[in-house]
């Protein structure tokens, strides 16, 4: 038993109390494949951005993953799904989920929460060459890779700060 062991529970309690919307760090316990598979083509998205049922639907259709074949071997698929479901967002907070096209898997950029958070973003910004997709979090949230989405870290296309 050393100081680190004693302080760890206190530290996690502190983290729970101070958890905010701009803190989307990945919860512990992600299988290694979460970064190497999901994170290869897009940001390894925070599980909290979709509800459990929506993650199950995403993970059930990886062979048609928004136009890509992102199939995984079954043990890897299951491990990633379990992590996402265990750490999924709360329906009450995210609101109704949404898709971009009928029959498509739910998108974390189409929840009521995501749309409300981004309603001030001009539509042209989403199509900007440096952005391309609302799922490209790191295009504007410069610290997204480390799970930090503070307003003061936002830099929009053309170098504009959020509060300019």
């Amino acid at each position, binding site marked *: 038993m050393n100081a680190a062991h004693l302080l760890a529970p206190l530290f996690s309690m502190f983290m729970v109390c101070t958890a905010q919307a701009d803190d989307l760090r990945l919860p512990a316990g992600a299988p290694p494949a979460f970064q190497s598979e999901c994170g290869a083509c897009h940001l390894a998205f925070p599980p909290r951005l979709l509800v459990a049922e929506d993650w199950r639907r995403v993970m059930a259709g990886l062979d048609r993953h928004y136009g890509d074949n992102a199939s995984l071997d079954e043990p890897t698929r299951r491990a990633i799904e379990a992590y996402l479901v265990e750490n999924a967002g709360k329906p009450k907070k995210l609101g109704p989920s949404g898709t971009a096209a009928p029959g498509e898997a739910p998108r974390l950029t189409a929840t009521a929460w995501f749309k409300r958070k981004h309603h001030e973003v001009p539509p042209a910004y989403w199509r900007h060459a440096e952005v*391309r997709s609302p799922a490209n979090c790191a295009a504007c949230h410069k610290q997204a890779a480390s799970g930090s989405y503070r307003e003061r870290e936002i830099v929009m296309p053309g170098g504009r700060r959020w509060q300019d």
Partner: protein
Amino acid sequence: MKALIPVLIGLFAVTAQAATPNEILAGYRAEAAKNNPRYQSSAELGAQLYRHSFGVSAKMPSCSSCHGDDPARGGSHVVTGKAIQPLAPAANAERFSDPAKVEKWFRRNCGEVLGRECSATEKADFITFVMRGR
């Protein structure tokens, strides 16, 4: 010391997977030579393969669509916009250092861009080009 043993075994398991780009290239060359004993990999053919517009995928017609025209400079995923680090080992030491990872991404990306698997000849040409640079 006993506690260190699993760590040492783990380290060995990791380093056992590691390879150099030249070793991985040699593997594909040897495989290609089975069909054609006079085969020599070609950076020129690799460059053509890298930039050819296959037209199988509207969004990703060529390797360069996402990896960028210059493999030493990197690119970005055409759909998600995520930055893609350079493919050239000279610019990015992680590239072509894990045979399983190389095979996995050839399988996946050849399927996406060419609509089929790539041959050992194509893989050897591709790596020869990427190692040489533009």
